[in-house]
Structure formats: C-alpha cells, structure tokens
C-alpha cells in the first residue's frame, strides 16, 4: 500500500526532465530552470530509487491485487488488526491494574513491618544508651566496641523475625567517616551497598522520616542473582546518639511471579480471541460473500448467453431476497429475449413465406407477359405498347421485390457471409464487363486502374460483385457521359475499390444520405432513372456484413467517389483504407474554385463547400502553402485511417495522405501536384463514421 504513495514521487521528478523538450514559449524557461538547477539532485537519484521501488513492488503486486479484489480477505485482515489492537489495549490495562493491586498490598504490609522495626531499633538504642550512661566513666574505645556489637545484634535480631520475608541492612549515615564499627551490615547474605539505591540514601540522609523505593536486591553470593524488592529506610540513632541508616528490604519475587502468570494468561487468551475473531469474521463474511460471488458468476454466464442459469436460493434473508430478485430479473430477461427471438424468427419466416407466395404468381405473370411481349408484332400499336410497358414494369417490380426481400433478410439478421479468398480484380472486370453495354449507351468509358497486382481478400464474391455492380452502374448513370474510373488498391490489412465519376456529384450532406432507403438525389427526376432506391442500402449492408466500410464523397459539379473498403481477412477490424475517400483530383485538391482558376488566399472563403461542411478550413491553412511532392511509395505504418481519424496535426495529416499509393488518376495529374490544398482529416472521418455507424 505504501508503495503506491511512494512511487509517484521519484517518477514525477524523473518525468520532469523530459518535459521541457516538448514545451515552447516563456513558460518552459522556468521549468528548465527548476529542473536543471533545483531538482538536479533528485533527478540523478531517481532512476536508482525508481528501480529499487519497482523491484520491491513487483512481488507485492499479486498480493495487492488480491487485496483489492477479495473483500473477504480485506474484512478478515481488518478484523484481525482491530481485534489485536483492542486485545493489546485491554491487556495493558488489566496488567497495570493487577500490578498495582499486588504492589499496594505488599507496600502496606511492608510499611507496617518496617515501622515496627524502626521502633524496635529506637527502643533498643534508648535502652542501651541508659546502660551506657551509667558506665559513662569507661573509655571511649570500649563504648565504640559495644556499639559494633550492639549493631550486629540489632541486625540479626531484627531480621530473625522474617526469615525470607525481608532482610535488614544498616549503612552509615552520609558524612559519617568515623569508620570502624558503623560499617555496612546486612542479613541474609545481602550486599548492603549495592542493594540500596544511592538516591534513597540521599533522601533519608538527615531526615527523620522513613522513605521507600524500588530496587533490586543484590546478593554477595553471585550465584543467587538478584531480585526485585521494595526498600524502606530510615535514619535512626545508635546508643551513642550517632545517626545511622536502617533499611528493610522486602523481596517482590512472589508478586513478580504472579504478574508474569497473569501476563502469560492474558497473552494466550488474547491470541485466542484474535484468532477466533478472525475465524468468525471469515465465516460471517463468507456467508455474505458466497452468494454475492455466485451472483457475479451467474451474471457473467447470463451475459455470455446462457440464459437458463439461476441462483440457488435458500431461506428468506436478505441474501435470499437478492437471489430471488436476481432470478426474477434473469427470468424476465430470458422471456424478453425469447420473445425477441421468436419475433425475429417469425419475421424471417414471414419474409420467406412472402417470398414464395409472391414469387410463384409473379413467375406466371412474368412468363405470360413475355409470351405476350414476344407476340407484340401481331397486335395493334396500343396493345403492343401495353405489352412493352407490362414487360418493362414487371422487370422493375421483380428487382424491387428482390431488393425488398434482401433488405428484410438483412434486417432479420438472416444474411450469412460466405467468405473465401477472392481476387477483387476478377470481380471488378466482371462488373465492368457487365456494365459495358450501359456505358456504351451513355457514351461513357470505364477505366480500371491499380489492377497490376492481385487484390486478394476474404470476401463473399456474390455480395462484393453486387456492391460493385451497383456502384459502377450508378457512376455510369450519373456520370453524364464522362469517364468512370474504378481504382483498386491494397495495403495494410485492407483492400479497397473506389469508383469515381465526374458527373453532377453530391451536394453537401448527401454523402451520408445516399445510403438511405428509397433516397433519391433529385425528387423531380426520380422516376426517370431506373433502380429501386434500395441498391446502396443493400450495398452498405453487404459491406457491413464483411466488416468493411462503404463511404461516399462528392462535390457539386465535381463528381463523386464511392469507396468500398474490406478487411483482407474476415473478422479482422479495419483501421484504414488504402484509398483516400476524397480523390486527388477533387476540386479542392486541385486548388480550383468554381471558375476553374487557381485558388488564391482571398478566394478561400468562397471555395465550394465540401460535402460535409468546411469546418476545418482554418486548420488547413498552414498546409496549403506546402507543395505536394507526393512520393509514390506507400508508407505502411502511416496507412491506417488515411489521415482520416488519426490526428489534427499537420505533419501526420500530410503523411497519411502521402501514404496512399499514388495511383494515376484521371488526367489532371500535373495540376494535382501543383495544387496544395488537402483534405481536412475531419471531413473524411465524419463521412466515414456517419455511413459506418448506421
């Protein structure tokens, strides 16, 4: 845990050294000053420190993850820690109280014992003094001799009362250097000077009040060791009236033993309590966590589609209620999904039935109409014309029915992809071959470029052909007799076919609407051109079924381009297209305005509006002056997105454009290379997302 808070510090200082490189302007100067000067030391130390921290943290990471993910562990550990704290606190309090109780009793008993002893010593001294006073004529030497004897007697008589319960020590009063008889004495083999603390001696020196202190009794016999004791002392006079210090030493070993017993008991009990509490917490949490985990597991299974999964519910408590609610939810979900599935199945079934029911009579009508049509020369002109109209409109009716059924198959999710590796060049050539008759009628030439190398992708040939046929036929029909260019390219994980025409083009906003069902560019002339109005919708669905894109670009009067991008292998997500959506020879790319003049700065505002608006015009400003010396080689790394979604930065935008294999486009190559205006990346994204996202 601490690693988390500690780690950012060295990392932060380390990062800061790199930052000024990217910065420009006045602000960075301060940064550089800070980094270079003030933080220099930190910078040098940080890599080592960071390494060390990482080294320390690495083995901890699994533990930390477990901590974060396992609520049971967390609760148990928290309970353990908290109960340990409580037990420790409780132990200290109890032990303190027991010790105080034990000592209080001992001290009181000792005090009364010692007081008695001091009284006896005083009494003895008085008696001895009276006796000595009668023999006052005797010499000083004899009296001192008596005192020594008296003192020894006193110590042994006083200590004889409490063998083992206490010892008696006499010490000369401070400043008494008379020596000789009043040397230290002690009973029970006690070392007199070492056992009485200096501090106590100083305290009773010169006062007539008893004092006490805790100390350790030290024995002369070093084998016996030492033991704690209560020392009570008082200054008393000897028979000569000279002061000396009398001490009672009460050993506390018994009390110490009792106390350690209590401590031991408490520790054992405390440990038990802590462990038991931990176990209890574990059990309790388990009761709650187990159903929660079960719910989580079952929710996962439900979301994985196993709708029949249910929680086991026992009892009537809150957990059981959770389980019941959960099961009810799952039940309802299953029911709803079932209903939807049934609906979808019914829809599919309906489509299938309609298909059959409509098609059989239509077949009869069709055949009848054809027979009539064949024989129209024998009819009068009105009937003959009627026969023609009948046959024509039956064609239209048929294709409309087919398209409708196809669309409803997509809507029902019944469309299946039969992908296998196909060479798109073959498909394109078939489609172009099929469109030739129409092109000849319209006076259009269809050119195919980029078919030198194989363009192979895993795709459903039937669907791809349908999409391309649609695009090519549309291009020829709206191309107003001008050339139609079909361009193939392959790069990265994608292949693309773009169909370019130079006809009326698309008005702003139409690039996405062309894919709408039954949408017509110009309602006024809607009925003159054939087609069901569903072609591009079906094409879009086909592209989507492949995991590919179908996008449109166009400018009013400048023609349009439809681009089909497919992933090279099925199920691989697309990241970009090998062909830019806006062709190189678009008006904007050529830098021409409506009048066909090279674009000047002042003209920018009146530039024909691009299909999806001109929002990025200002962003394009800086690049406009950059000449387009487009290298023909593709940069595969720059491919994805063709600048479409990548970045608003000028550099990578340009790179994205150049990455596209420079395929020769219609006629205006020299103008194209001289004209610097580029596609705003955002325009392309917009279109792409819009058509893809529906």
């Amino acid at each position, binding site marked *: 845990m601490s690693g988390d808070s500690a780690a950012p510090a060295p990392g932060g200082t380390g990062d800061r050294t790199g930052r000024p490189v990217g910065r420009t302007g006045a602000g960075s100067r301060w940064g550089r000053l800070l980094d270079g000067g003030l933080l220099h030391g930190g910078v040098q130390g940080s890599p080592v420190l960071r390494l060390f921290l990482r080294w320390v943290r690495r083995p901890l990471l699994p533990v930390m993850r477990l901590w974060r993910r396992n609520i049971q562990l967390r609760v148990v550990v928290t309970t353990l820690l908290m109960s340990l704290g409580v037990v420790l606190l409780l132990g200290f309090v109890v032990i303190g109280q027991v010790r105080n109780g034990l000592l209080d009793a001992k001290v009181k008993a000792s005090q009364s014992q010692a007081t008695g002893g001091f009284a006896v010593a005083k009494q003895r001294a008085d008696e001895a003094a009276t006796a000595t006073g009668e023999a006052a004529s005797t010499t000083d030497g004899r009296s001192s001799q008596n005192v020594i004897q008296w003192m020894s007697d006193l110590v042994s008589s006083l200590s004889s009362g409490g063998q083992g319960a206490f010892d008696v020590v006499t010490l000369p009063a401070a400043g008494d250097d008379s020596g000789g008889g009043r040397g230290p004495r002690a009973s029970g083999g006690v070392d007199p000077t070492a056992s009485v603390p200096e501090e106590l001696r100083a305290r009773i020196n010169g006062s007539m009040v008893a004092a006490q202190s805790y100390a350790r009794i030290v024995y002369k016999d070093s084998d016996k060791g030492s033991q704690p004791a209560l020392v009570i002392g008082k200054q008393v006079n000897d028979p000569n009236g000279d002061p000396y210090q009398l001490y009672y030493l009460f050993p506390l070993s018994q009390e110490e033993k009792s106390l350690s017993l209590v401590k031991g008991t408490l520790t054992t009990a405390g440990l038990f309590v802590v462990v038991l509490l931990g176990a209890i917490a574990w059990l309790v949490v388990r009761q709650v966590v187990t159903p929660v985990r079960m719910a989580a597991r079952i929710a996962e299974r439900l979301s994985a589609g196993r709708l029949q999964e249910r929680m086991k519910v026992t009892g009537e408590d809150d957990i059981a209620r959770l389980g019941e609610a959960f099961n009810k939810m799952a039940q309802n979900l299953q029911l709803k999904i079932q209903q939807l599935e049934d609906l979808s199945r019914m829809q599919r079934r309906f489509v*299938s039935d309609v298909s*059959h029911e409509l*098609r059989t009579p239509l*077949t*009869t009508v069709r*055949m009848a109409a054809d*027979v009539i049509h064949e024989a129209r020369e024998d009819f009068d002109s009105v009937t003959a014309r009627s026969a023609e109209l009948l046959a024509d409109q039956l064609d239209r009716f048929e294709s409309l029915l087919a398209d409708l059924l196809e669309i409803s198959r997509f809507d029902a999710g019944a469309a299946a992809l039969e992908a296998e590796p196909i060479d798109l060049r073959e498909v394109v050539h078939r489609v172009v071959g099929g469109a030739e008759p129409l092109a000849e009628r319209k006076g259009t030439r269809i050119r195919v470029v980029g078919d030198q190398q194989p363009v192979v992708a895993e795709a459903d*040939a039937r669907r791809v052909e349908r999409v391309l046929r649609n695009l090519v036929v549309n291009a020829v029909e709206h191309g107003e007799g001008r050339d139609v260019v079909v361009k193939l390219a392959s790069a990265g994980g994608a292949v693309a076919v773009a169909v370019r025409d130079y006809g009326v083009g698309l008005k702003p906003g139409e690039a996405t609407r062309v894919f709408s069902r039954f949408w017509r560019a110009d309602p006024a002339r809607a009925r003159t051109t054939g087609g069901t109005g569903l072609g591009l919708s079906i094409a879009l669905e086909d592209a989507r079924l492949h995991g590919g894109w179908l996008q449109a670009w166009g400018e009013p009067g400048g023609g349009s381009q439809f681009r089909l991008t497919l992933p090279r292998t099925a199920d691989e997500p697309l990241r970009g297209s090998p062909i830019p959506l806006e062709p190189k020879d678009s008006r904007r790319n050529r830098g021409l305005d409506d009048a066909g003049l090279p674009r000047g700065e002042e003209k920018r505002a009146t530039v024909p509006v691009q299909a999806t608006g001109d929002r990025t015009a200002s962003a394009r400003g800086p690049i406009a002056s950059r000449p387009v010396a487009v290298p023909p080689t593709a940069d595969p790394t720059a491919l994805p997105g063709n600048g479409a979604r990548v970045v608003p930065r000028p550099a990578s935008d340009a790179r994205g454009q150049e990455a596209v294999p420079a395929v020769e486009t219609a006629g205006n190559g020299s103008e194209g290379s001289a004209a610097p205006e580029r596609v705003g990346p955002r325009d392309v994204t917009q279109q792409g997302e819009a058509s893809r996202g529906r």
Partner: protein
Amino acid sequence: MMSFMKGRVLVVDDDTALAEMLGIVLRGEGFEPSFVADGDKALAAFRETKPDLVLLDLMLPGRDGIEVCRLIRAESGVPIVMLTAKSDTVDVVVGLESGADDYVVKPFKPKELVARIRARLRRSEEPAPEQLAIGDLVIDVAGHSVKRDGQSIALTPLEFDLLVALARKPWQVFTREVLLEQVWGYRHAADTRLVNVHVQRLRSKVEKDPEKPEIVVTVRGVGYKAGPS
C-alpha cells in the same frame, strides 16, 4: 436435331397456373411437357412418362421437392432442374445435395428457363468414341461409363460431364466459372455453389477417401483439376 426428339419434360408443380404457363412456354419451344401436382404422385408419374428432364418445384404438398428429388435420383440419373422461390443458401444447397443438377430461381424469364433445360439436354447428343484416364479411373465417353479396376461406378450425366471435362485437360486448373460454362452451359458467371456441391457429390462416388481427394483435386483459391493418373 437430336435433342428436340428427346424433349419430354415432367413438370412437378402444385401451382396450376404456373404449370399451365410452363406448359405453354415449353410447347412453344418444342418440348413435350407432362404435369403432376402432388409430391406423392411424382415418382409414379416419373416412372410412367420416363421424361428426359424433370422440372421440380421445391415446395410441394405431400412429399416435398427435396424428397422427390432424392427418390428420382435414387433410380435414375435423369437431369433435374429445381424451381425455387428461395435463393437462400441453405435451400439451394440442400436441393443440390439431394441430387438436383441445376436450379432456377423464381421469378425466372421463360428464355432463361429454356436455356437451362437445353443446356441439360444438350449433352445427350452422341459423343465420339473416346477413352480417358483420370487417377486410377478409366472413362469411356461414348459408352458413358466410369470404371475402376473393371468395376463400373454409377454417375449421373452431370457428374459424368464434370469428370470428363476435368479428365480431358488434366494439365489445366479449372476455375469454378469455367466449369459452370463448360458443364452447366452458363454464358456468364452464376452461382459457384453449383460447382462446389457437385464436386462434393462426385467425390463421394469416385474417391477412395473423399476426405483426401485424389481424382478431383482442389487448387486453393483457384478451382479444381484432375488428379495425376
């Protein structure tokens, strides 16, 4: 023309209007149509009329078209063309797997149907005597027989045509489109599932181990070719 003499077509369809219309068109093209509207009676009618070709609707009262197709195929190799209202993958594939040689999706144009029928009857013209070998098989083109070690293998005319087409040019890899044109007579590319299904059916008859084909070899991404003999 030889093919016009063999012009008996059995139409199995429950829709009387369509059947009548089919009759009009077929007669107009010189065929001799006969009709049956019930799946249960189809087999009896087939035995009785001995047609050169069967036009079979997939959705029939009584036995459905798939079942009828299987029964006819069990006793004859006569060409069967399915009429189907559903161009969905499963229906078509199931129909082809049950033995149909070709299919036409409703609504069809009369010319399209006639072209399909002609294509299936055309192969009945007498071929020149010719012996071909493919793998360990010996093919007698004129005798219309395929033999392995003297044991003859029964093939439908379509399967035989497919095998002969591959065996005539063992050095060539046939794309599905080329096979469609040569064997089925499609002028422009149609449904390649026809080829896939019939190659599977052919393999199940002529290969020792259909899982590891040696006679009809798949060339991945291109098509099929004859195995080395």
